[in-house]
């Protein structure tokens, strides 16, 4: 059996490039659909309690970017 190797996270840089107009649209969409602040159903549960924080890389995502990654249509209007 091979011994295996240690895998090091490559990057932890977060970005924040969502325009204000899209942010406003996302906030309204969340309110209208009774979602949690991450744009997911209200009963959602996450690894480590926070979907914005990636424990395998140390990356902290921007909340709006996270929502857009799951709901790309919100950025297209």
């Amino acid at each position: 059996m091979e011994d295996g190797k240690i895998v090091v996270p490559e990057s932890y840089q977060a970005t924040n490039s969502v325009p204000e107009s899209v942010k406003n649209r996302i906030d309204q969409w969340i309110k209208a659909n009774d979602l949690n602040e991450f744009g997911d159903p209200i009963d959602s549960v996450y690894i480590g309690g926070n979907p914005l924080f990636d424990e395998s890389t140390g990356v902290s995502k921007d909340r709006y970017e996270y929502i857009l990654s799951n709901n790309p249509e919100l950025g297209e209007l």
Partner: protein
Amino acid sequence: MKVFQLLLITFLFKVGAYAENPEKPKPEDGKIVVGNSFTEIDHHVTDGIIVDFKNTVTKQQIKNFETKFAVDYQQYSLYPEEKIGLIRLAKGLTNLINRLRTSPLVEAVEPNYIYSLVGEAALRKNISKPKDPNPEDFQDPYYKHQWHMAQINLPQAFARVQGHGAIVAVIDTGVAYEDYQGFKRVRDLNETQFIHPYDFVDNDAHANDDHGHGTHVAGTIAQSTNNGLGVVGVAPGATIMPLRVLDGSGRGSLGAIANAIKWAADKGAHVINMSLGGPFPSSILRKACKYAADKGVLLVCAAGNSGGRIGYPAKYPECMAVSAVQYDESITFYSSRGKEVSIAAPGGNVRVDQNGDGYPDGVLQNSIYAKDNSKDDYMLFMGTSMAAPHVAGAAALLVSAGVTDAKRIEQILKSSARYKGDEQLYGAGLLDVGNAVNQAVSGTAWSRLLAAFLIAFAFLKSNITRLLHPLSLLGLIAFGSGVVPLGFNCHVDQFPGFLCYPIPVWDQAFLGLDVANPIFRSAFWVLLFVGFGYQIKILRPFLQGMGFGLSGFLLVSAFMPQVDLDYIPIALQAEFIWYILNALLAAMIAKHANPK
């Protein structure tokens, strides 16, 4: 002597109803990228103050607050409803903090430490040197990079217990525990035991991991250890119950978690680890937590990675909320905080290399690749998800040492932790599993021994010197403390480890940790031995010693119960009364067991 025999017969009649090296990968592999500088916290530099307002505070009240203290408050937390924000200022920090803390609107006020890029040399300059892993402690070649195991003082605990007999449910993304339809058991769980798996996402009996998180968590708890491979776990003798509630994206629903908690409680788990959570409370989840706690299961939860308030289920009183520290034992930037924090444990920080071992300071365990579930390696993760399983593993060690009462386990973990100050960050302090096991095994034993001598002194008064007879001491130790206080460093959870324990808990050694027979923990022994051995004069010193030893054992058990007694109701302090009455009975018999 007839009195003793009559007592014995009566007692037996009354209680009859109870009868029952690999080398570091080469740079050309392209897998290890370690820079010269990392983001690090400087505890001497701040750019302002973090203020945590109470939930009930309105926007208008915050405006009034800004006016009153002449400050500018900016929302800080990811969660808008949390009302955690920043007040920027350059001077007069301490004075303002003290003033703000007087406001009835705020829950907490603390400096906002700056995270900045600094060189490694500068970084290490101000770090007190924590204990580093000694590669000779384990036969697992990557242990030298597991600073987190040294931080919790694992080798000291490992000399005594390894978790055998304890069952820990891992409610997570599943665990890579079997070779099944493309899934593979990871190499460093090759000797780990598994029981009652279930997948609450796909509703089948194969809780395989398609993410990697759950396997990493399970590894911290029970990685196969001293197997010549990779890394170590806190309690490798423990049995893991893999329960999958989060999908490959790391998300799940409260309903699945509630079902998994009930499953774990019904299937005999002693400890449940939940390195997950959500921002909202749920009556279903709360009910499930209460159900498990009422069944005597210890719930260990990650406090959360928001840097703000603690989420659910960690916030529930039934759960031990675990915050995360890094190599230098300071709280991590991401660790959630609040009065609900029970204890701190290593969660790591892959943005720094404070120990200078050439790798980021994450928690190192064996896990799968998220993109290829059939491949595994040694992954450096960071998060309160990584901190919680250190505590769950420690709890498993205590179970293995015979402490199965969940409240007592929590009490020992907290009282043995290394106090770190601010309880909203560190709770009772930093987990010290060496101290915890020591307290569970030796600490209690010494208490029993002391109690036995005090009781003997109260009953024998001037005749106390009789207890110095070697046979008296033998009886006292065998039934009161076990041999542990004498310095024997035996593996109490492995054969013949039962010899380390006092005889009244041998039922657990032979019948399993979930057994706690009240007859074994009563004056039964002294009635039995005195009833049949009193006629043999040479045995009388032993009988007296065992009587007082047993009395000491029972008295300490009344105040520090290690287990929930079978058949004895919890209500009306029945267990406490049972122990006290039996302690008195044992002492009274012992007093007369060795007359002049």
